[in-house]
């Protein structure tokens, strides 16, 4: 007998697009909820433009690799919500669903006649999670974000870089993924509360606002001690403290050395490892792992204070050793001796070379009709009674329109065909994919 899923029987109306919203509903789907993703081919920015279509394959609405990984576990209903027929279908869908999620700018859904009060009139206990850029209240509610803008405006970009240089920032949309996590966290919390009390609610989650609490200790250093982080030595690159600058906590843990990234053999672009020693004992273990070099026996490195003060010399010497080893060999050797060390891994490293992710089956292939079979990312938790797993590759656009409109909502085949002719389920002037023609019979 198949194991139950944590969200068996839960249905989500998913208006979300691009990354943050879809990342949230991806997890709800992995947990077993039925995700009905409402799409429209003329403005599916999660599908097009695509920079992740395999070389040599036609770029179209169904061949974005990143869309595929982001949207596993979902069904696609193409629907023009801005028509009376489309709106009526959405209303009927909400009536048989538990959660509504969207990540438009504030007030878009309300303008369509689908604000929380409307949704509640259709389904009193609906859990509505809006995932906007800046939230639904506050004078900047209409501002727009991508991850990099939320990261900039919230202080997260400022945490990343070398002192005295421009920010390095985050090389991807950390807050799209993290915003997505908050969307899922809010949906699950709202669902739990509904199950316990019978009450739904509107949860106003937003990318920029969710970013700010991630700066907690830095914020308290300012509000409590009056100390800001625009200061010499901040951010300290990969270190806990930048030598020659005031000795202050830099909000990433205890102030120790060594704490840095070091080049490894053979010195290619991602041949780096990181090493951190929290105690004198861990330092002595590192000295042993390095073969007891003479330089390491100097008194000045024996204490935490000494290692911090002489960190440049310390790091230069460690790197002369680390350059003789591959990053995985260095990691094994250090960890075997109780030293904190890890390789700097690229995406390829994670997928192909990381033995732990392989053991935990982090990447499993899923077959997709247009893209073929490719590895998709799995959940980072193992639930003993209700495992989370990817059960379906991402949908082709509009693939489930018939299943939902006829099967779930009870419209007739004639209604379905009429809706394709009159622009409700597909733009009247746009060519249809073969599978849509087949679906219409």
């Amino acid at each position, binding site marked *: 007998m198949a194991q139950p899923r944590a969200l068996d029987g839960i249905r989500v109306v998913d208006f979300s697009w691009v990354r943050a919203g879809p990342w949230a509903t991806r997890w709800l789907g992995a947990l077993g909820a039925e995700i009905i993703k409402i799409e429209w081919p003329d403005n599916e920015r999660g599908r097009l433009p695509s920079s992740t279509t395999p070389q040599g394959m036609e770029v179209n609405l169904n061949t974005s690799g990143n869309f595929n990984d982001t949207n596993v576990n979902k069904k696609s209903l193409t629907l023009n919500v801005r028509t009376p027929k489309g709106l009526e279908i959405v209303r009927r869908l909400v009536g048989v669903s538990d959660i509504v999620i969207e990540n438009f700018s504030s007030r878009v859904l309300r303008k369509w006649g689908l604000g929380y009060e409307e949704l509640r009139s259709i389904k009193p206990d609906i859990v509505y999670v809006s995932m906007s850029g800046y939230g639904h209240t506050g004078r900047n509610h209409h501002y727009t974000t991508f991850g990099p803008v939320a990261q900039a405006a919230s202080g997260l970009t400022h945490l990343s870089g070398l002192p005295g240089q421009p920010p390095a920032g985050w090389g991807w949309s950390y807050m799209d993924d993290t915003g997505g996590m908050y969307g899922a966290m809010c949906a699950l919390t709202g669902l739990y509360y509904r199950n316990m009390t019978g009450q739904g609610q509107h949860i106003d989650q937003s990318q920029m606002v*969710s970013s700010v609490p991630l700066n907690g200790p830095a914020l308290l250093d300012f509000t409590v001690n009056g100390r800001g982080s625009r200061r010499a030595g901040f951010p300290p690159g990969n270190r806990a403290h930048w030598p020659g600058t005031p000795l202050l906590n830099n909000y990433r843990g205890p102030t120790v050395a060594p704490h840095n990234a070091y080049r490894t053999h053979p010195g290619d672009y991602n041949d780096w490892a990181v090493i951190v020693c929290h105690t004198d004992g861990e330092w002595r273990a590192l000295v042993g792992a390095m073969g007891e070099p003479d330089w390491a026996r100097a008194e000045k490195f024996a204490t935490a204070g000494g290692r911090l003060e002489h960190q440049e010399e310390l790091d230069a010497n460690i790197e002369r050793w680390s350059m003789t080893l591959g990053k995985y060999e260095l990691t094994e050797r250090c960890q075997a001796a109780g030293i904190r060390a890890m390789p700097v891994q690229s995406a390829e490293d994670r997928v192909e070379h990381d033995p732990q992710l392989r053991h935990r089956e982090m990447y499993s292939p899923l077959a997709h009709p247009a893209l073929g079979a490719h590895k998709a990312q799995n959940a980072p938790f193992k639930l003993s009674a209700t495992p989370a797993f990817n059960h379906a590759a991402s949908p082709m656009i509009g693939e489930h329109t018939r299943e939902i409109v006829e099967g779930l909502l009870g419209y007739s085949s004639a209604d379905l065909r009429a809706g394709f002719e009159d622009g409700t389920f597909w733009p009247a002037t746009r060519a249809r994919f073969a599978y849509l023609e087949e679906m219409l019979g």
Partner: protein
Amino acid sequence: MSGADANGGPLAGLRVLELADEKGQFCGKLLGDLGADVVKIEPPGDEPCRHVGPFLDDRPHPERSLSFWYYNTSKRGITLNLTTADGRALFRRLAAGADVILETFRPGYLASLGLGYEALRADNPALVMCALTPFGQTGPWRDYLSADLLHMAAGGLMASCGYDDADVPNAPPIAPGGGNAWHMGGHYAYMGIMAALVYRSVSGQGQYVDTSIHEACALTTESAVANYVYRGEVLRRQTGRHHAAAPTPPTQFPAKDGKYVTALISGGLNPRNVKALAEFLDVYGMAEDLRDPKYQDPKVIAANTAHIIDGVLRRFIASLPAEEVYHAAQERGFTWGAVRAPEDLLDDAHLADRGFWKQVEHPELGRSFTYPGEAAIFNGSPWRISRRAPLIGEHNDEIYYGELGLSRAELGVLAENGVI
């Protein structure tokens, strides 16, 4: 384990036992701020997170760690020594009445004390137990030691962050700061716990949630894995913007006041948004030649990208303070942001409008302090800090005497024997 309280947060009525260090205290904070009754169990006399700065008035002390204060709001605190038989017996009594247990010990440790999930569920079949560890409960790296920097490296995050060679030659990959590895682990642990609680709310059944911080981090790199899986690309680090297979135009520009602005042109440069940009810059007399009709030709735009972005746009941003550029651009529909330091957020009017900043009392100090508030607004069941972080053993009396019914004499003996 009573029903939810309509005036409290969405998790009101839930009892959580937290045995967590830096790896799990943030997840416990989320549960507590959302209304759960989180009881933080610390080893008597030595919880390492209390020794992490910054400290109140820069005076190190276990009750003055601002990092501990932040990550342990809304929790009650007790001390308990699990290495003693009395300690383990008390823990079993607490576990029998708990809804959730969150722990960050090395894999196998609690089981070795007879306090693993299999033992505890016997007295409490509805228990949800979450182990949040660096690499999970099984596998070749299971017993490896970690740190925030190590997770940023192994998780793939560092490989994407850094500098253009022109800005900082031979720069290393850069790990963004702020302890975000623990945040990523905490977010997914929270998700796993809530999924288990939703299932429990309909089935009555608990379960074990094995969460890996390494996997949480490895998942949080947007399209990097897809870029590799579908195109085999190596992405290269660039200053203040996305990694890319081939160099892309800059998006981070210095403003007049020395702060930076992140200015993205959504969808890339095309006739429509070049026109919009020109109109915006023209208000300040900084449009230069952008209003020339030649820029309605996409080929001309493509041939002049460096001039438009690295020339005209850069000079415009350099002419004004960062906040002014940010708000003026956003009001015109441009998705731009000022690069702020965390302290700048205290002046943000939008956050003030939303009541984001909260006063949290520290009665033993006779002071209140401003804390950041909720990450999202739950309009039906508030997300809010209910109290400051606990003092060491602050609620020993309330819980051992008040709830478990031990006498004060028994508590005295336990304290003398190092059990609490």
